[in-house]
Protein backbone atom coordinates (compact mmCIF):
# COMPACT_ATOMS: atom_id res chain seq x y z
CA UNK A 1 0.00 0.00 0.00
CA UNK A 2 1.22 3.50 -0.77
CA UNK A 3 1.23 4.62 2.85
CA UNK A 4 3.35 1.66 4.00
CA UNK A 5 5.95 2.31 1.30
CA UNK A 6 5.85 6.00 2.21
CA UNK A 7 6.57 5.22 5.87
CA UNK A 8 9.36 2.82 4.86
CA UNK A 9 11.06 5.37 2.61
CA UNK A 10 13.93 7.56 3.78
CA UNK A 11 12.02 10.80 3.22
CA UNK A 12 8.79 9.31 4.57
CA UNK A 13 10.38 8.49 7.93
CA UNK A 14 11.71 12.01 8.24
CA UNK A 15 8.28 13.35 7.24
CA UNK A 16 6.71 11.31 10.06
CA UNK A 17 9.26 12.82 12.48
CA UNK A 18 8.41 16.28 11.16
CA UNK A 19 4.60 15.88 11.27
CA UNK A 20 4.59 14.35 14.75
CA UNK A 21 7.12 16.99 15.84
CA UNK A 22 4.83 19.74 14.59
CA UNK A 23 1.89 18.19 16.49
CA UNK A 24 3.99 18.04 19.67
CA UNK A 25 5.12 21.67 19.27
CA UNK A 26 1.47 22.71 18.81
CA UNK A 27 0.54 20.82 21.97
CA UNK A 28 3.41 22.52 23.83
CA UNK A 29 2.12 25.91 22.71
CA UNK A 30 -1.36 25.18 24.11
CA UNK A 31 0.15 23.70 27.28
CA UNK A 32 2.38 26.78 27.75
CA UNK A 33 -0.61 29.09 27.22
CA UNK A 34 -2.62 27.26 29.91
CA UNK A 35 0.25 26.99 32.37
CA UNK A 36 1.00 30.69 32.06
CA UNK A 37 -2.10 31.08 34.27
CA UNK A 38 0.17 30.03 37.16
CA UNK A 39 1.83 33.46 37.02
CA UNK A 40 -1.58 35.05 37.70
CA UNK A 41 -2.11 33.12 40.93
CA UNK A 42 -3.50 29.81 42.19
CA UNK A 43 -7.12 30.94 41.74
CA UNK A 44 -6.77 31.49 37.99
CA UNK A 45 -4.70 28.36 37.52
CA UNK A 46 -7.31 26.29 39.38
CA UNK A 47 -10.09 27.79 37.20
CA UNK A 48 -8.11 26.86 34.08
CA UNK A 49 -7.48 23.31 35.34
CA UNK A 50 -11.09 22.77 36.41
CA UNK A 51 -12.43 24.11 33.10
CA UNK A 52 -10.09 21.86 31.13
CA UNK A 53 -11.06 18.80 33.14
CA UNK A 54 -14.72 19.72 32.83
CA UNK A 55 -14.46 17.96 29.44
CA UNK A 56 -13.18 14.54 30.56
CA UNK A 57 -13.99 12.80 27.25
CA UNK A 58 -12.13 15.44 25.22
CA UNK A 59 -9.15 15.31 27.59
CA UNK A 60 -9.06 11.51 27.30
CA UNK A 61 -9.27 11.53 23.49
CA UNK A 62 -6.67 14.30 23.26
CA UNK A 63 -4.39 12.41 25.65
CA UNK A 64 -4.68 9.17 23.67
CA UNK A 65 -3.98 11.06 20.44
CA UNK A 66 -0.89 12.60 22.02
CA UNK A 67 0.27 9.18 23.17
CA UNK A 68 0.03 7.81 19.62
CA UNK A 69 1.88 10.84 18.19
CA UNK A 70 4.57 10.70 20.86
CA UNK A 71 5.04 6.95 20.39
CA UNK A 72 5.47 7.46 16.64
CA UNK A 73 7.95 10.33 17.20
CA UNK A 74 10.04 8.35 19.69
CA UNK A 75 9.76 5.09 17.74
CA UNK A 76 10.88 6.56 14.43
CA UNK A 77 13.54 8.62 16.21
CA UNK A 78 15.07 5.50 17.77
CA UNK A 79 14.87 3.69 14.41
CA UNK A 80 16.72 6.55 12.67
CA UNK A 81 19.28 6.66 15.49
CA UNK A 82 20.18 3.00 15.00
CA UNK A 83 20.29 3.40 11.23
CA UNK A 84 22.71 6.29 11.66
CA UNK A 85 25.02 4.23 13.87
CA UNK A 86 25.58 1.83 10.98
CA UNK A 87 27.37 4.48 8.91
CA UNK A 88 29.42 6.07 11.68
CA UNK A 89 33.23 6.22 11.77
CA UNK A 90 33.90 4.74 8.35
CA UNK A 91 37.06 6.80 7.76
CA UNK A 92 40.48 6.65 9.41
CA UNK A 93 40.41 10.42 9.79
CA UNK A 94 37.00 11.84 10.67
CA UNK A 95 36.78 15.51 9.78
CA UNK A 96 33.70 17.68 9.62
CA UNK A 97 33.74 20.67 7.29
CA UNK A 98 30.62 22.10 8.90
CA UNK A 99 30.90 21.58 12.64
CA UNK A 100 27.51 20.05 13.41
CA UNK A 101 25.70 21.98 16.09
CA UNK A 102 25.51 20.73 19.64
CA UNK A 103 21.74 20.46 19.15
CA UNK A 104 21.87 18.25 16.06
CA UNK A 105 24.57 16.05 17.58
CA UNK A 106 22.57 15.42 20.75
CA UNK A 107 19.06 15.02 19.25
CA UNK A 108 18.55 11.39 20.39
CA UNK A 109 19.91 12.09 23.88
CA UNK A 110 17.93 15.28 24.53
CA UNK A 111 14.94 13.43 23.10
CA UNK A 112 15.28 10.48 25.46
CA UNK A 113 15.83 12.80 28.42
CA UNK A 114 12.62 14.64 27.54
CA UNK A 115 10.86 11.26 27.42
CA UNK A 116 12.14 10.43 30.92
CA UNK A 117 10.93 13.82 32.09
CA UNK A 118 7.52 13.24 30.49
CA UNK A 119 7.07 9.92 32.30
CA UNK A 120 7.90 11.51 35.67
CA UNK A 121 5.84 14.61 34.86
CA UNK A 122 2.70 12.71 33.80
CA UNK A 123 3.05 10.37 36.77
CA UNK A 124 3.47 13.25 39.22
CA UNK A 125 0.78 15.59 37.94
CA UNK A 126 -1.71 13.22 36.37
CA UNK A 127 -1.64 9.64 37.63
CA UNK A 128 -0.45 9.94 41.24
CA UNK A 129 -2.46 13.06 42.16
CA UNK A 130 -4.64 12.49 45.25
CA UNK A 131 -8.31 13.09 44.44
CA UNK A 132 -9.02 15.52 47.29
CA UNK A 133 -6.07 17.90 46.75
CA UNK A 134 -6.53 20.73 44.20
CA UNK A 135 -3.95 20.67 41.38
CA UNK A 136 -2.69 24.17 42.20
CA UNK A 137 -1.63 22.90 45.65
CA UNK A 138 0.10 19.86 44.12
CA UNK A 139 2.04 22.10 41.70
CA UNK A 140 3.23 24.35 44.50
CA UNK A 141 4.11 21.41 46.72
CA UNK A 142 6.18 19.61 44.10
CA UNK A 143 7.92 22.58 42.53
CA UNK A 144 8.94 24.16 45.83
CA UNK A 145 11.31 21.20 46.23
CA UNK A 146 14.84 22.13 45.09
CA UNK A 147 15.81 18.91 43.30
CA UNK A 148 12.40 18.40 41.71
CA UNK A 149 12.51 21.95 40.34
CA UNK A 150 16.10 21.59 39.22
CA UNK A 151 15.15 18.44 37.28
CA UNK A 152 12.33 20.37 35.62
CA UNK A 153 14.66 23.20 34.62
CA UNK A 154 17.24 20.79 33.18
CA UNK A 155 14.46 19.07 31.20
CA UNK A 156 13.28 22.42 29.79
CA UNK A 157 16.84 23.26 28.74
CA UNK A 158 17.01 19.86 27.00
CA UNK A 159 13.70 20.66 25.31
CA UNK A 160 15.03 24.02 24.09
CA UNK A 161 18.17 22.36 22.65
CA UNK A 162 16.04 19.65 21.01
CA UNK A 163 13.77 22.26 19.43
CA UNK A 164 16.73 24.34 18.26
CA UNK A 165 17.62 21.67 15.69
CA UNK A 166 14.14 20.15 15.48
CA UNK A 167 12.28 23.28 14.40
CA UNK A 168 14.58 24.07 11.46
CA UNK A 169 14.96 20.41 10.55
CA UNK A 170 11.16 20.00 10.51
CA UNK A 171 10.72 22.88 8.07
CA UNK A 172 13.52 21.61 5.82
CA UNK A 173 11.88 18.17 5.76
CA UNK A 174 8.57 19.75 4.75
CA UNK A 175 10.50 21.49 1.98
CA UNK A 176 10.21 24.97 3.48
CA UNK A 177 13.45 26.53 2.25
CA UNK A 178 13.13 29.82 0.43
CA UNK A 179 15.59 32.73 0.32
CA UNK A 180 12.82 35.13 1.35
CA UNK A 181 11.99 33.21 4.54
CA UNK A 182 15.29 31.56 5.48
CA UNK A 183 16.29 34.53 7.64
CA UNK A 184 12.95 34.41 9.48
CA UNK A 185 13.30 30.64 9.97
CA UNK A 186 16.83 31.09 11.35
CA UNK A 187 15.44 33.60 13.88
CA UNK A 188 12.46 31.43 14.80
CA UNK A 189 14.65 28.39 15.43
CA UNK A 190 16.13 30.38 18.33
CA UNK A 191 13.04 32.36 19.39
CA UNK A 192 10.65 29.37 19.62
CA UNK A 193 12.86 27.24 21.94
CA UNK A 194 13.73 30.27 24.09
CA UNK A 195 10.04 31.20 24.41
CA UNK A 196 9.22 27.70 25.67
CA UNK A 197 12.22 27.78 28.00
CA UNK A 198 11.12 31.11 29.50
CA UNK A 199 7.44 30.17 29.98
CA UNK A 200 8.01 26.63 31.26
CA UNK A 201 11.33 27.19 33.01
CA UNK A 202 9.94 30.24 34.76
CA UNK A 203 7.43 28.10 36.66
CA UNK A 204 9.91 26.07 38.80
CA UNK A 205 12.03 29.23 39.26
CA UNK A 206 8.87 31.07 40.39
CA UNK A 207 8.33 28.51 43.17
CA UNK A 208 11.99 27.80 43.95
CA UNK A 209 12.94 31.42 44.54
CA UNK A 210 9.96 32.02 46.78
CA UNK A 211 8.37 34.46 44.31
CA UNK A 212 5.35 32.15 44.31
CA UNK A 213 5.14 31.92 48.11
CA UNK A 214 1.72 33.59 48.11
CA UNK A 215 0.50 31.33 45.26
Amino acid at each position, binding site marked *: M*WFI*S*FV*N*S*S*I*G*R*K*AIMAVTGLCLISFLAIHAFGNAAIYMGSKYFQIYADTLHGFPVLVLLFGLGLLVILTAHVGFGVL*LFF*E*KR*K*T*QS*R*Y*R*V*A*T*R*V*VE*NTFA*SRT*MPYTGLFILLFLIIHVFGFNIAVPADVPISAVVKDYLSGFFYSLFYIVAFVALAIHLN*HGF*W*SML*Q*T*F*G*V*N*HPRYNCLIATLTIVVPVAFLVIFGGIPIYFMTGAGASF
Partner: protein
Amino acid sequence: MSTIDLKLLIWRQKNSDSLGDFETHVLKDISTDMSFLEMLDVLNEKLTKDGMEPVAFDHDCREGICGMCGAVVNGVAHGPEKETTLCQLHMRKFASGDTLVIEPFRSRAFPIKKDLMVDRSSLDRIIQAGGYVSVNTGGAIDGNTTPVSTETAELAMDAAACIGCGACVASCPNGAAMLFTGAKISQLSLLPQGHAERKQRATAMVAQMDKEGFGYCSNERECEAVCPKGISISSIARMNREYLKGVFFGR
Protein backbone atom coordinates in the same frame (compact mmCIF):
# COMPACT_ATOMS: atom_id res chain seq x y z
CA MET B 1 59.86 25.91 -8.60
CA SER B 2 59.01 25.09 -4.99
CA THR B 3 58.66 21.49 -3.92
CA ILE B 4 57.33 19.69 -0.89
CA ASP B 5 57.87 16.31 0.76
CA LEU B 6 54.84 14.27 1.74
CA LYS B 7 53.96 11.13 3.63
CA LEU B 8 50.97 9.28 2.17
CA LEU B 9 48.77 6.81 3.99
CA ILE B 10 46.87 5.37 1.07
CA TRP B 11 44.10 2.78 1.00
CA ARG B 12 45.02 -0.42 -0.88
CA GLN B 13 42.42 -3.05 -1.62
CA LYS B 14 42.83 -5.77 -4.24
CA ASN B 15 39.15 -6.16 -5.18
CA SER B 16 35.63 -5.92 -3.76
CA ASP B 17 35.95 -9.25 -1.97
CA SER B 18 39.30 -8.76 -0.26
CA LEU B 19 40.06 -6.80 2.88
CA GLY B 20 41.95 -3.57 2.40
CA ASP B 21 44.50 -1.74 4.49
CA PHE B 22 46.60 1.42 4.49
CA GLU B 23 50.01 1.53 2.82
CA THR B 24 52.60 4.17 3.67
CA HIS B 25 54.63 5.92 0.98
CA VAL B 26 57.02 8.84 1.21
CA LEU B 27 57.17 11.22 -1.75
CA LYS B 28 60.02 13.70 -2.08
CA ASP B 29 60.29 16.85 -4.21
CA ILE B 30 56.65 17.10 -5.26
CA SER B 31 56.14 20.29 -7.27
CA THR B 32 53.56 22.59 -5.71
CA ASP B 33 52.23 23.28 -9.21
CA MET B 34 51.06 19.68 -9.53
CA SER B 35 47.44 18.70 -9.11
CA PHE B 36 46.57 16.05 -6.55
CA LEU B 37 46.11 13.46 -9.30
CA GLU B 38 49.49 14.35 -10.84
CA MET B 39 51.02 13.72 -7.43
CA LEU B 40 49.35 10.27 -7.50
CA ASP B 41 50.74 9.77 -11.03
CA VAL B 42 54.23 10.41 -9.64
CA LEU B 43 53.57 7.88 -6.91
CA ASN B 44 52.38 5.33 -9.48
CA GLU B 45 55.45 5.85 -11.67
CA LYS B 46 57.61 5.24 -8.65
CA LEU B 47 55.63 2.12 -7.70
CA THR B 48 55.83 0.77 -11.27
CA LYS B 49 59.61 1.32 -11.36
CA ASP B 50 59.90 -0.51 -8.07
CA GLY B 51 57.93 -3.41 -9.53
CA MET B 52 54.89 -2.78 -7.33
CA GLU B 53 51.21 -2.54 -8.26
CA PRO B 54 50.24 1.10 -8.97
CA VAL B 55 47.36 2.67 -7.01
CA ALA B 56 44.08 2.44 -8.96
CA PHE B 57 42.06 5.66 -8.96
CA ASP B 58 39.31 7.03 -11.20
CA HIS B 59 39.90 10.12 -13.32
CA ASP B 60 38.93 11.44 -16.71
CA CYS B 61 38.79 15.11 -17.69
CA ARG B 62 41.06 16.43 -14.95
CA GLU B 63 39.43 19.83 -15.26
CA GLY B 64 36.71 19.43 -12.64
CA ILE B 65 33.70 18.87 -14.87
CA CYS B 66 33.32 15.12 -15.39
CA GLY B 67 32.75 13.84 -11.85
CA MET B 68 34.99 10.82 -12.29
CA CYS B 69 37.73 11.57 -9.74
CA GLY B 70 37.36 11.75 -6.01
CA ALA B 71 38.87 10.46 -2.81
CA VAL B 72 38.65 11.37 0.84
CA VAL B 73 41.77 13.31 1.86
CA ASN B 74 42.30 13.66 5.59
CA GLY B 75 38.61 13.01 6.20
CA VAL B 76 37.27 15.49 3.64
CA ALA B 77 35.85 14.41 0.27
CA HIS B 78 37.88 16.02 -2.56
CA GLY B 79 40.31 17.41 0.00
CA PRO B 80 40.46 20.66 1.93
CA GLU B 81 39.77 23.17 -0.87
CA LYS B 82 36.18 24.47 -1.09
CA GLU B 83 34.15 23.82 -4.27
CA THR B 84 37.04 21.97 -5.88
CA THR B 85 37.28 18.45 -7.27
CA LEU B 86 40.31 16.34 -6.40
CA CYS B 87 41.85 16.90 -9.87
CA GLN B 88 41.66 20.67 -9.44
CA LEU B 89 43.20 20.58 -5.97
CA HIS B 90 46.82 21.66 -6.17
CA MET B 91 49.73 20.58 -4.06
CA ARG B 92 50.43 24.20 -3.10
CA LYS B 93 47.53 23.78 -0.66
CA PHE B 94 49.70 21.42 1.39
CA ALA B 95 52.85 22.04 3.39
CA SER B 96 56.09 20.10 3.33
CA GLY B 97 56.06 17.29 5.89
CA ASP B 98 52.27 16.85 5.78
CA THR B 99 50.81 13.40 6.21
CA LEU B 100 47.91 12.76 3.84
CA VAL B 101 45.43 9.99 4.59
CA ILE B 102 43.81 9.04 1.28
CA GLU B 103 40.73 6.84 1.36
CA PRO B 104 38.05 5.92 -1.20
CA PHE B 105 34.52 7.38 -1.06
CA ARG B 106 32.87 5.00 1.38
CA SER B 107 29.19 4.08 1.36
CA ARG B 108 27.09 0.93 1.55
CA ALA B 109 25.96 1.78 -1.99
CA PHE B 110 29.51 2.32 -3.33
CA PRO B 111 31.32 -1.04 -3.32
CA ILE B 112 35.08 -0.62 -3.62
CA LYS B 113 36.39 -2.04 -6.91
CA LYS B 114 40.08 -1.55 -6.24
CA ASP B 115 42.16 0.82 -4.08
CA LEU B 116 40.48 4.23 -4.51
CA MET B 117 38.07 3.14 -7.25
CA VAL B 118 34.46 2.73 -6.18
CA ASP B 119 31.44 1.53 -8.13
CA ARG B 120 29.07 4.49 -8.29
CA SER B 121 26.59 2.89 -10.69
CA SER B 122 23.97 3.12 -7.92
CA LEU B 123 23.77 6.84 -8.80
CA ASP B 124 23.17 5.93 -12.45
CA ARG B 125 20.33 3.63 -11.44
CA ILE B 126 18.70 6.51 -9.52
CA ILE B 127 18.81 8.55 -12.74
CA GLN B 128 17.39 5.63 -14.74
CA ALA B 129 14.48 5.40 -12.30
CA GLY B 130 13.18 8.87 -13.17
CA GLY B 131 15.85 11.37 -14.17
CA TYR B 132 14.62 11.83 -17.73
CA VAL B 133 12.12 13.82 -19.79
CA SER B 134 9.88 12.59 -22.58
CA VAL B 135 10.32 14.32 -25.92
CA ASN B 136 8.19 13.76 -29.03
CA THR B 137 10.04 12.37 -31.99
CA GLY B 138 9.96 14.25 -35.28
CA GLY B 139 11.42 17.60 -36.26
CA ALA B 140 13.49 19.44 -33.69
CA ILE B 141 11.52 22.01 -31.70
CA ASP B 142 12.40 25.65 -32.43
CA GLY B 143 14.43 27.42 -29.79
CA ASN B 144 12.36 29.48 -27.34
CA THR B 145 9.13 27.61 -28.20
CA THR B 146 8.72 27.00 -24.48
CA PRO B 147 9.32 30.23 -22.56
CA VAL B 148 11.56 29.84 -19.50
CA SER B 149 12.42 32.84 -17.33
CA THR B 150 16.09 33.62 -16.82
CA GLU B 151 15.75 33.11 -13.07
CA THR B 152 14.21 29.64 -13.47
CA ALA B 153 16.83 28.70 -16.05
CA GLU B 154 19.59 29.83 -13.68
CA LEU B 155 18.11 27.87 -10.76
CA ALA B 156 17.82 24.75 -12.90
CA MET B 157 21.38 25.30 -14.11
CA ASP B 158 22.62 25.60 -10.50
CA ALA B 159 21.14 22.15 -9.83
CA ALA B 160 22.35 20.78 -13.17
CA ALA B 161 25.90 21.72 -12.18
CA CYS B 162 25.97 18.43 -10.22
CA ILE B 163 28.62 16.18 -11.78
CA GLY B 164 27.51 13.10 -9.84
CA CYS B 165 30.90 12.53 -8.21
CA GLY B 166 29.40 11.12 -5.02
CA ALA B 167 31.23 13.42 -2.58
CA CYS B 168 27.89 14.21 -0.88
CA VAL B 169 27.36 10.51 -0.18
CA ALA B 170 30.95 10.02 0.96
CA SER B 171 30.78 12.86 3.48
CA CYS B 172 27.20 12.43 4.72
CA PRO B 173 27.14 11.12 8.31
CA ASN B 174 24.25 8.90 7.18
CA GLY B 175 25.65 7.93 3.79
CA ALA B 176 22.67 9.57 2.07
CA ALA B 177 22.46 10.53 -1.60
CA MET B 178 19.93 13.28 -0.88
CA LEU B 179 21.95 16.13 -2.38
CA PHE B 180 22.62 14.20 -5.59
CA THR B 181 19.02 13.04 -6.00
CA GLY B 182 17.73 16.46 -4.92
CA ALA B 183 19.85 18.19 -7.54
CA LYS B 184 18.74 15.82 -10.30
CA ILE B 185 15.07 16.16 -9.37
CA SER B 186 15.37 19.96 -9.05
CA GLN B 187 17.02 20.38 -12.42
CA LEU B 188 14.09 18.68 -14.17
CA SER B 189 11.16 19.81 -12.05
CA LEU B 190 12.10 23.50 -12.31
CA LEU B 191 11.81 23.47 -16.10
CA PRO B 192 8.52 23.12 -18.03
CA GLN B 193 10.08 20.29 -20.06
CA GLY B 194 10.29 18.21 -16.90
CA HIS B 195 6.68 18.67 -15.82
CA ALA B 196 5.16 15.70 -17.67
CA GLU B 197 6.76 13.08 -15.39
CA ARG B 198 6.86 15.30 -12.33
CA LYS B 199 4.52 13.31 -10.08
CA GLN B 200 6.18 9.96 -10.67
CA ARG B 201 9.75 11.22 -10.86
CA ALA B 202 10.52 11.95 -7.20
CA THR B 203 8.70 8.83 -5.94
CA ALA B 204 10.55 6.57 -8.38
CA MET B 205 13.98 8.12 -7.79
CA VAL B 206 13.63 8.12 -4.00
CA ALA B 207 12.45 4.49 -4.06
CA GLN B 208 15.54 3.53 -6.09
CA MET B 209 17.78 5.59 -3.77
CA ASP B 210 16.46 3.65 -0.75
CA LYS B 211 16.80 0.33 -2.59
CA GLU B 212 20.49 1.03 -3.28
CA GLY B 213 21.15 1.33 0.45
CA PHE B 214 21.65 5.08 0.78
CA GLY B 215 20.75 6.61 4.12
CA TYR B 216 18.30 9.32 5.17
CA CYS B 217 18.88 13.02 5.75
CA SER B 218 19.44 14.45 9.21
CA ASN B 219 19.97 17.99 7.93
CA GLU B 220 23.61 18.38 8.94
CA ARG B 221 24.65 20.24 5.75
CA GLU B 222 27.93 18.38 5.34
CA CYS B 223 27.05 17.47 1.73
CA GLU B 224 26.55 21.11 0.77
CA ALA B 225 29.91 22.01 2.33
CA VAL B 226 31.96 19.42 0.41
CA CYS B 227 30.09 19.60 -2.92
CA PRO B 228 32.63 20.65 -5.58
CA LYS B 229 29.82 22.36 -7.49
CA GLY B 230 28.28 24.18 -4.52
CA ILE B 231 24.84 22.54 -4.82
CA SER B 232 22.61 23.96 -2.07
CA ILE B 233 20.48 21.93 0.32
CA SER B 234 17.51 23.92 -1.00
CA SER B 235 17.63 21.16 -3.66
CA ILE B 236 16.90 18.66 -0.89
CA ALA B 237 13.97 20.79 0.28
CA ARG B 238 12.67 20.88 -3.30
CA MET B 239 13.01 17.09 -3.54
CA ASN B 240 11.08 16.72 -0.28
CA ARG B 241 8.26 18.89 -1.69
CA GLU B 242 8.26 16.96 -4.96
CA TYR B 243 8.27 13.64 -3.13
CA LEU B 244 5.44 14.56 -0.74
CA LYS B 245 3.38 15.90 -3.66
CA GLY B 246 4.08 12.73 -5.63
CA VAL B 247 3.19 10.39 -2.75
CA PHE B 248 0.01 12.16 -1.67
CA PHE B 249 -1.32 13.51 -4.97
CA GLY B 250 0.33 11.33 -7.62
CA ARG B 251 -1.71 8.77 -9.52
